[in-house]
């Protein structure tokens, strides 16, 4: 039998406070921490009206449509035609899809000797348990080589667009950086190592299970971005600057290019390749796939971080 407590005594116990907090009846911070209710964001009527007329203002200013009835007509026609064109394209594609071979049937043209060999001989020929990894990094490695250079050229164009020129002053965008957000920092301290290790696991495990350089690199990049947000540029620049980025990308892509050149060259000339396949399933197996996954992972991680840093302050 439980002992009955008087209501006053019960209200002083921990259990009472805890369950009341769970039910959300009382905010534990109320009365102890100074809190201000957030102000509601007001959009002034003027600015709403101004933004509503923005489209017409641009038309007037750029094309002078007031004195140019033909252009105005053209613009309205243009809008109607673009909508009609989109509808036409959607209809066309839907009709086409309805004529395509039915999904899931055995007699589909895509179920041919190409995929059969990937599935049946993939393990033996590439040494990778993960058939997809074997396909993209061994059978069709040339495509993936191109694909990793797509990422590279994309960063270069972002660099062109966002990096400050020599004469341009850094406009001190850092005043907008979050300043030592305690919650974010605590969460990041716990999460960043886990995210990093998980990313490394995905990369190293790419030839054994689902994963690989692209996905693992994206995870590591996300971890770096989280770290940057929590601790600011001053901390990240201790280990990751533009120079680091440049050299990491250079070495990864060079390794990728040279390693694959060797394998293309030996393959095409029917020469013996010295790269061992290893036992399938072991961590050190499947020839070049593991090192290539690491190279791709490094490029992707650096690219994601570089994009973020570039958008934040036009450099590292």
């Amino acid at each position, binding site marked *: 039998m439980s002992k009955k407590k008087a209501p006053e005594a019960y209200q002083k116990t921990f259990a009472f406070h805890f369950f009341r907090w769970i039910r959300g009846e009382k905010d534990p911070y109320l009365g102890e921490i100074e809190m201000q209710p957030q102000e509601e964001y007001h959009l002034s009527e003027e600015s709403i009206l101004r933004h509503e007329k923005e489209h017409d203002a641009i038309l007037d200013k750029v094309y002078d449509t007031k004195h140019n009835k033909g252009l105005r007509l053209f613009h309205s026609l243009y809008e109607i035609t673009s909508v009609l064109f989109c509808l036409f394209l959607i209809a066309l594609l839907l009709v086409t899809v309805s004529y395509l071979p039915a999904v899931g049937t055995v007699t589909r043209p895509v179920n041919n000797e190409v995929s059969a060999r990937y599935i049946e001989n993939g393990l033996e020929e590439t040494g990778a348990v993960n058939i997809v990894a074997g396909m993209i990094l061994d059978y069709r490695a040339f495509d993936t080589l*191109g694909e990793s250079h*797509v990422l590279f*050229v994309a960063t270069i164009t972002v660099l062109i667009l966002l990096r400050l020129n020599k*004469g341009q002053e850094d406009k001190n965008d850092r005043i907008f950086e979050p300043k030592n957000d305690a919650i974010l920092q605590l969460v990041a301290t716990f999460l960043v190592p886990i995210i990093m290790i998980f990313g490394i696991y995905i990369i190293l495990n790419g030839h054994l299970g689902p994963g690989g350089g692209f996905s693992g690199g994206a995870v590591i990049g996300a971890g770096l971005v989280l770290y940057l947000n929590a601790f600011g540029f001053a901390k990240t620049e201790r280990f990751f600057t533009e120079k680091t980025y440049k050299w990491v990308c250079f070495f990864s892509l060079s390794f990728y290019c*040279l390693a694959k050149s060797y394998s293309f060259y030996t393959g095409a000339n029917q020469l013996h390749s010295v790269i061992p396949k290893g036992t399938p399933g072991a961590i050190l197996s499947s020839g070049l796939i593991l090192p290539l996954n690491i190279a791709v992972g490094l490029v992707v991680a650096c690219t994601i971080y570089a994009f973020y840093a570039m958008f934040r302050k036009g450099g590292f």
Partner: protein
Amino acid sequence: MNFVCNFPFFSILLSLFSGTICSVLPAKAAKIVNRVVIVVVGLLSATLLLYLISVGEPFIYWMGHFPAPWGNEIRAGILEAGMALFFCIIMYLSMAGGAHKLFDEVDESKHNLYYILVNLLLSSLLALVYTNDMFTAYVFVEINTISACGLIMIRQVGRTIEAAVRYMIMSLLGSGLLLFGLCIMYDLTGHLLMSNIKESVALLVASGEYQIPLIVSVALMCVGLCIKSALFPFHAWLPDAYGYSTVSSAAILSSLVSKGYIFLLIKIIYRVIGFNIFNNTRIIDVLFVFGLMGMIFGSTSAIRENDVRRMIAFSSVAQIGYIYMGFGMGTQAGMVASVYHILSHAATKSLLFIAAIGLTEVSGGSRKLVDLTGSGYRNKWAGVAFTAGSLSMVGIPLFSGFISKLLFAQAAVQVEGKMLASLIVLGISTILNAIYFMKTVIRLYTATGNSPYRGITFGKMKRYAITLIFFILLNILLGVSSQPIVDLIEQGLAMFS
């Protein structure tokens, strides 16, 4: 296997790798790497071309340890090697002709980025030329698109940013449509390799199965590549992109990037769909009509233009129209004329862009036609080069433009039903070309009493003038020795099928 057969693979990998190397080099070293790579790739392609002419048959090259439908492969024939060689020559001359302007146009800290983009662009062009796999083609189309965007906006003024955004939107739409077409094609045939798709397509056409998706797929691929190469109704991105980017970029974009896509389309027509199957579709009629419209509307827009570089850019629309008109004729002769015109237009258009920059420099940097009055006297070499380019564009004998017009006319005569339209529009277009080019040339040599601008002598622009001389020589070479080149093109096209 002969060692020469490695050369396509060497050229692609070399230019790709040099892009990576340039990212850690200072600007000057990057420039040297860029030039050396273009020259080396050009030499490799030339050797390959000679080898292929002596052997007389194309070869395929495994990219890896696995044969074709499983692994990647590339393929080289006379046309491929010739195109690669030609692209290298034009790219070298364009880079050399615009080198002295680069310091005004691009911030110095970004010079090495410029060379990275050029190297990657070269590698993607080479891959588009040599590939035998549709998906590889798509991957390198992506590299080509992004680096072309970078080349446009590396000169950071308002108009180039706007032009790059326009180019990106239109070009990505084109890539997207190409990818749609490719996906449908893969679903119907189960292959990505060009020769295997061709076999499956022939079977599908013979059995009459899946006719609607097949035609939609072909149409989507065609429209995608037409958008990317600025066929008439899709040319809105072109004048700003060519008119305001750096001069080397404009020359490269107009003479190489759009031609790379057109070459891919030729490959698709011959090696993926099959020439006869493609010609039995109504798509060639559509290409024909839009080609003709482009020839007229491009030229009329150019006539109305006041800005010399935008005028040259609009003239590209007309010239692209010629090429598609050749496709639209649906005969071997029309195709040969189109391929020849790719060469002729690439050589002439880059010459015009490079010459125009010399003329605007001695006119206070102004590109308005009014300010260019008499500039042919102030910069004699650029004036002569511009005149030579104009004469070639109009189609005066001795220059390459004449031969391509002649080939188009000869091809048109053999086509029933399309002869009259082609010949009439060819005539009108020639007159329109003459109007705006000759108008400009006459203006260049109209003496002004006391011009506020100062001229430039040969001693101060040796490299630039020598580049121009090489351009003119290339043009005359194409025009004078046309028969061997046409023979080579015919052999190359025969190797395609």
